[in-house]
C-alpha cells in the first residue's frame, strides 16, 4: 500500500517536471524522426538518380554518393550517446568554449542519427518499387523527377511507414541517452527526482510507465494513419444510382 502511495506521490509532486520531460522527449523524437525522414528521402533521391550525361555532374554525383555512404556507415556504426558528446563538445572545442542550446542540440543529434537509418530504409524502398512503374511513367514522357515525385515516392512513403513508425518509437526511447549532455528530456528529470526523494525504484517505475505510454500511443496512432492512407478497400462505381454523388446527370443546360 505504501508503495502505491509513493508512486502516486511522485506523480502528484513532480508532475511539472515529468510533464516537461515527456514534452521534450516527444518534441525531440518527433522533429528528429521527421527531419531524419527528410534526410532519408533526399539521400535516397540522390543515390538512385540516373547518372548524368554531363561529365561534371556525374563526377559530383559520385562524390556526393561517397559522402552519403560514409555518413550512413559512421552514424549507424557508433552509439548515439557518443555522437551526442562528440558533436556537443566538438562544437564547444571548435568555437573555443561556446555551446549550442540543449534542446536544439538534441534535435540535431537525433535527426542526423535517424537520417542515417532512414537513408537505408528509403533507398531499399525505392529499389523495391517495380521497374514497371518507372517504365510506365517514362513511356508517357514523364521525366525522372516527375516520376519520382508523382509515382515512386508516394508509394515508397506508404511502404516504409511501418519502418518510420519503428524509428519514431526507437527515438522516444533513445532520446534518454541525451541526458549525457544535459538535455532536459524525461530520463534527465528522473535523475533529478531520484536525487530529491531517494526512491530510486519508484521513480524509475513511473518513468518506465510514461515511456511505454508514449511509445504505445505512437504505435497505435501511426497504425491508424497507415490504414487511413490505404483508403477504402472498395470504390464507388461512377454513375452509381445508389450513391447520389456518383450519379451521372444529364442536365439540359450542359454544353
Amino acid at each position, binding site marked *: 500500500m505504501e508503495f502505491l502511495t509513493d508512486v502516486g506521490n511522485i506523480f502528484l509532486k513532480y508532475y511539472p517536471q515529468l510533464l516537461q520531460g515527456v514534452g521534450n522527449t516527444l518534441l525531440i523524437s518527433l522533429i528528429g524522426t521527421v527531419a531524419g525522414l527528410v534526410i532519408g528521402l533526399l539521400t535516397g533521391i540522390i543515390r538512385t538518380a540516373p547518372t548524368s550525361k554531363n561529365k561534371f555532374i556525374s563526377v559530383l554525383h559520385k562524390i556526393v554518393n561517397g559522402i552519403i555512404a560514409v555518413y550512413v556507415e559512421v552514424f549507424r556504426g557508433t552509439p548515439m550517446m557518443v555522437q551526442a558528446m562528440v558533436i556537443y563538445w566538438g562544437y564547444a572545442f571548435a568555437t573555443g568554449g561556446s555551446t549550442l542550446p540543449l534542446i536544439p542540440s538534441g534535435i540535431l543529434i537525433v535527426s542526423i542519427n535517424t537520417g542515417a537509418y532512414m537513408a537505408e530504409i528509403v533507398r531499399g524502398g525505392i529499389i523495391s518499387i*517495380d521497374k514497371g512503374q518507372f*517504365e510506365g511513367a517514362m*513511356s*508517357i514522357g*514523364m521525366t525522372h523527377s516527375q516520376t519520382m515525385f508523382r509515382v515512386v515516392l508516394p*508509394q515508397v512513403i*506508404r511502404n516504409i511507414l511501418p519502418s518510420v513508425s519503428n524509428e519514431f518509437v526507437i527515438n522516444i526511447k533513445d532520446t534518454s541517452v541525451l541526458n549525457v549532455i544535459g538535455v532536459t528530456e524525461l530520463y534527465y528529470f528522473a535523475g533529478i527526482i531520484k536525487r530529491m526523494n531517494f526512491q530510486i525504484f519508484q521513480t524509475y517505475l513511473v518513468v518506465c510507465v510514461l515511456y511505454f505510454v508514449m511509445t504505445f500511443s505512437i504505435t497505435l496512432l501511426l497504425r491508424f494513419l497507415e490504414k487511413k492512407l490505404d483508403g477504402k478497400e472498395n*470504390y464507388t*462505381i461512377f454513375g452509381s444510382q445508389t450513391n447520389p454523388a456518383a450519379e451521372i446527370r444529364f442536365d439540359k443546360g450542359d454544353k
Partner: protein
Amino acid sequence: MENVIELVHLQKQFGDHKVLEDINFSVRKGETVSIIGSSGSGKSTMLRCINLLETPTGGEILFHGENVETSPMGVSQYRAKVGMVFQSFNLFNNMTVIENCMVGQTQVLKRDKATAKEIAMQYLEKVGMTPYINAKPRQLSGGQKQRVAIARALAMDPEVILFDEPTSALDPEMVGEVLTVMKQLSESGMTMLVVTHEMAFAKNVSDRVIFMSDGIILEEGTPQDIFDNPKNQRTKEFVGRDGSF
C-alpha cells in the same frame, strides 16, 4: 503514305550479346503492323528501343524523318508522341484510374486539370472503363487494367502506339476484351506496332506482319504473304506451328 517511324540499321547489344543485328523497316501513318517471332528473337527489345527505354547501340530511329536521339524535341516530348502498352500494364499503383490517365497530360503536355480530365474521360469511355474511374489498379482485373493502360496511352494523343504482348499476362477470358479495343483502335486509323502471340490478331487485324528471328527481320509482308504463303523455312515452321490449332 508518310513514314511515322523508320528504323535504319538498328542494332542493340547487351554487353557482348547481340540482340538486334540490323533492323530496317518503317511504319506508315495509319498502319497496324504485327511483329511475330519466337521467344528471345528480340521483339521486345526492338519495341523498347523505339521509345528509348533501351538505348540503341547502332543505327538510327527516325520519327517523321528525324533522328529521335538528337532531335531538338527532346526524349520526353518524343515519348509522349509514341505510346506504349506493356504486357504487365504498368499502371501507377498510387493513383486511381482517372488519375492514371491524367498525370501524363498535366505533367508532360502541361494541360490544365479540367481539360485533362475531360480527355481522360473520353478515352476511358472508348475502352469501356468509365464506371471504374475511382478504382485503384489493384481493384481491377487484368483485362480492365490493360484497357486503362490503353486509355492512358491514348490520352497523350500519340501518333503511334507500341504494344508489347498486351494480352500475354491475361486470363483467356479477358484476352477478347482487350483485342476488341485494339481492333477498334486499328480501324479508327491509329498507327500501331504490335508484338503479339495472338496469331488471329496478326492475321485478321494487321496490315503488315513482320517475322523476327535471332535479332533480324526474316520475312515481312501482308498477313496473306506470311500466313498463307511464307517463303522462309523458319517462318513456315513458326506460323505452321501456331496456326495449327
